C-alpha cells in the first residue's frame, strides 16, 4: 500500500451559498464518506479541515493577507489515504461530498521523506 493525499478544493462563493440545513446534511455525508474509508483501513491520516483565515508568505518574506491572493479557488482541507495505486485513490476520491457542492478533489502521490538523524 502507498499513501496518497486527497486535497479538497472549492471556490469560496460555492460554500457561501449553502444553507445551515444543507450544511448539516453535508457534514453527515463527509462523516459517512471518511468513515467508509477508515472502515477499510485506508485512512492513513485524517488530515485537516482548513478555515478561511490565511496569509501568503512570499520570497523576500513579503506577507499578504488571505489565502486567495491570486486564485479564486482555495484548498479546504486534505486527508491521506492508503491505496495500491493512484487509480484506486482516485476511485476513493469519487465519493467525496465536496463534488456535490461545486468543488473538486486533487489526488497526489506522496514522496517518502527520510529525515537524517543528527
Amino acid at each position, binding site marked *: 500500500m502507498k499513501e496518497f493525499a486527497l486535497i479538497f478544493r472549492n471556490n469560496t462563493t460555492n460554500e457561501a451559498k449553502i444553507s445551515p440545513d444543507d450544511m448539516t446534511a453535508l457534514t453527515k455525508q463527509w462523516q459517512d464518506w471518511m468513515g467508509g474509508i477508515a472502515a477499510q483501513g485506508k485512512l492513513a491520516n485524517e488530515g485537516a479541515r482548513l478555515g478561511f483565515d490565511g496569509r501568503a508568505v512570499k520570497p523576500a518574506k513579503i506577507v499578504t493577507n488571505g489565502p486567495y491572493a491570486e486564485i479564486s479557488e482555495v484548498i479546504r482541507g486534505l486527508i491521506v489515504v492508503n491505496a495500491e495505486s493512484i487509480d484506486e485513490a482516485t476511485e476513493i476520491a469519487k465519493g467525496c461530498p465536496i463534488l*456535490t457542492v461545486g468543488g473538486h478533489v486533487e489526488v*497526489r502521490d506522496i514522496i517518502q521523506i527520510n529525515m537524517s538523524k543528527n
Partner: protein
Amino acid sequence: MIVSKQWENWMGGIAAQNKLAARGNRLGDEGRTVKANNVVINGPFAEIKEMLGGYSIIRAESIEEATEMAKGCPVLELGGTVEVRDIIAMS
C-alpha cells in the same frame, strides 16, 4: 529521499520548540483531479499554474506567529510561497 539540510534545519527548529504538530507530507508530481459526475483529469494542474508541493501542520498562538515561522521556509528561496491557514477542529 533525504531532505535537504535547509529543510531539515527549518523543520527541526520548529520541532525543537514543540510546535511541529504533524510533519505532513511532501507531494510528488503524479496527480489526478476528480470533478463532479466522475470526471477525472490527469495531472494536478488542471486550472492553476502553481502546484502544492507539500505541507506541514504547526502549533502557534496566532496566525501571525505561524506566519513568522513560515518566513524561514526554504521554498521561499526557490521562488515558491507558503500559504498559512487556520485549521477547523473536527469533532
